[in-house]
């Protein structure tokens, strides 16, 4: 059937040998078509390749590598290979035998011989210290004295630092003596290993991250709700105005959208701080006393206000583009059929805006959940979000494994949300400006 059609359209095609269609040079038509298609596919792919390679190399790969850090655990394996081997027969209950301590001594001595840049005891000390405080001092002090140790090594080690007498240290060495670890995730969930190796909740005063995740989610939800509450009326108003006026008023939405993030954040500092515009105006008007100035910034209020302002355009723009497409005659029809304005709005208009609310809501939520700059500048202590904690571990405490674990959890959350968003509304509804 298809062959007959093709022959009608292209009479210059020749039917040869076993009755198959061929092109002028004798190749079968099907093969020639397939080749042409492959060539076009290849050409299209060739256009995409440079960017794809670039994004994979400089964006996807670095992030994958960072995620890998959250389970990568090379320090103990690299520093104590002989000790770990000797520990294989250890019962886990009593202090290890002299044999283990001799292996430990050999591992320490091996490190003494290495050039400074390749030494592994420093990273080991840092790594063990995450699991057991005081481990750092045990390792560094022992490193200084180890060259003078004489057998039996066990007593020498116990003399150098009392932590070597602690079964817990040995359990940590055995547990973390594997190339992969779950320890960073355990810590990121406010849990730790107890002395039997079970995962248990940390002491109340050392629980930080779960609470921070919850706070981040709650703050993002509050910001999303506020942008919705403020964005819905103005998007509606813009959508019922004649285009000329709507475009003019749109400037009020677009100007903040295009203004630098740091400019908008500093604007809120200027407005909200204790000596700022709002407080000074209130004092000048005699509404509050000079010592009664509100603290509206460097706390959660400041973060929420500033972020609502910064993210409001991301809610208004998708809402507006959806509302523009809703014919006003629907509302009139509902009213003419006897619906009260509130019923008409609730049952006819509002349901049609849901795609816009979904798009704007998820957009604002995704952006705010990973926000860093504004909470860092105006958040103070109570307005901190999870990104600030990631940045702190990256730059100050240098616990990169924990930063990677927190980052991976945040990233997975955002990707799941984005995936849901795509299922619900599709990326096509993302428009800028």
């Amino acid at each position: 059937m298809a062959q007959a059609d093709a022959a009608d359209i292209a009479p210059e095609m020749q039917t040869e040998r076993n009755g198959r269609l061929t092109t002028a040079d004798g190749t079968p038509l099907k093969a020639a078509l397939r080749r042409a298609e492959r060539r076009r596919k290849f050409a299209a792919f060739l256009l995409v390749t440079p960017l794809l390679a670039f994004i994979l190399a400089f964006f996807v790969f670095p992030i994958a590598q960072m995620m890998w850090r959250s389970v990568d655990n090379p320090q103990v394996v690299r520093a104590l290979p002989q000790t770990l081997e000797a520990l294989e027969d250890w019962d886990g209950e009593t202090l290890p035998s002299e044999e283990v301590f001799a292996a430990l001594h050999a591992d320490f001595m091996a490190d003494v011989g290495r050039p400074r840049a390749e030494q592994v005891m420093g990273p080991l000390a840092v790594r063990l210290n995450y699991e057991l405080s005081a481990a750092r001092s045990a390792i560094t002090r022992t490193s200084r004295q180890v060259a003078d140790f004489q057998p039996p090594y066990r007593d020498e080690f116990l003399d150098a630092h009392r932590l070597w007498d602690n079964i817990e240290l040995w359990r940590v060495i055995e547990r973390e003596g594997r190339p992969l670890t779950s320890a960073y995730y355990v810590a990121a969930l406010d849990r730790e290993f107890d002395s039997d190796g079970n995962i248990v909740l940390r002491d109340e005063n050392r629980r930080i991250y779960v609470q921070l995740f919850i706070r981040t989610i709650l703050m993002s939800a509050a910001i999303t709700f506020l942008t919705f509450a403020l964005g819905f009326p103005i998007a509606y108003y813009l959508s019922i105005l004649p285009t000329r006026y709507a475009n003019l008023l749109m400037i009020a939405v677009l100007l903040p959208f295009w203004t630098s993030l740091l400019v908008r954040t500093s604007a809120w500092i200027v407005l909200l701080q204790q000596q700022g515009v709002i407080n000074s105006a209130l004092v000048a008007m005699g509404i509050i006393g000079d010592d009664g100035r509100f603290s509206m910034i460097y706390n959660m209020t400041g973060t929420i206000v500033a972020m609502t302002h910064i993210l409001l355009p991301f809610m208004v723009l998708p809402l507006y583009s959806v509302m523009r497409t809703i014919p006003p005659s629907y509302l009139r029809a509902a009213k003419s059929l006897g619906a009260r304005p509130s019923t008409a709005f609730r049952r006819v208009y509002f349901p049609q805006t849901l795609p816009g609310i979904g798009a704007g809501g998820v957009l604002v939520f995704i952006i705010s959940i990973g926000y860093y700059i504004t909470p860092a500048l105006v958040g103070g202590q109570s307005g901190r979000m999870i990104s600030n904690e990631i940045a702190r571990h990256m730059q100050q405490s240098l616990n990169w494994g924990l930063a990677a674990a927190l980052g991976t959890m945040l990233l997975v959350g955002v990707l799941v949300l984005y995936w849901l968003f795509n299922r619900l509304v599709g990326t096509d509804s993302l428009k800028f400006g």
Partner: protein
Amino acid sequence: MALPSYATTGDKIWYYTFRVICFAIFFFLLAPILVMIPLSFNAQPFFSFTREMMTLNPDGYSLRWYQDFLGSDSWMRSIRNSFIIGIAATVLATTLGTLAALGLSRSEMPFKGAIMAIMISPMIVPLIISAAGMFFFFSQIGISGTYLGVVLAHAALGTPFVIITVTATLVGFDQSLIRAAASLGASPTRTFFKITMPLILPGVISGALFAFITSFDEIVIVLFVAGPEQRTIPREMWSGIREDISPTILAVASVMVALSVLLLVVIELLRRRSERLRGLTPG
């Protein structure tokens, strides 16, 4: 939309209340940005309106913060850095992004969904995560604290915008024009520069503008990847806010607001031109 003549009192009340609410929200959007402009002319180092300013006494106003800004080496260097990095990142992002958009909008493109997802990802992933990843990777390959590193990072962040805007322009693109050019004997390169490029140019330019703004306004990557030599305007503002917040920040901010107004106008003009070319709105 005016009130109909049969509106009840309740309708009228609601009509005006709604407008008051809307204008209050517009005020909330604009006021914080606009309030900085008069304050940047404050003669005193305060963040509030002085009595002299309120009475429009010329002594209450001065250009000292603008002098501070224009006379400071570090601010001037940050402006230069922002433009160097922004322009280089834009050129890279626009070139790669336009090529990729051309490929992605062809119907025979294989694995379109997956490739699109990878290319859009820099827009979705929280900046702190991108910054963390690049921080490790760039120091491993030795481009941490170099212009190259910041430019590559910013180009990666800018490409999704180029892809989205150029793909959107290509949706309305009439493919038969390319066939017509080819049938008249034009080579693919010639077809691209003579036919395709002029038609998709508004999309490319607005994509480039987005990429430039992304780089120009970006701070998280700069905080993690850039060295002291590559401090950009947002980076300088960041330390200005964190260390000693002086009204110089307001002078800088006012200049930046002026820049965004300019940008807003350019984008609006481009949008209108593009709609006219595609016949969406009559001339």
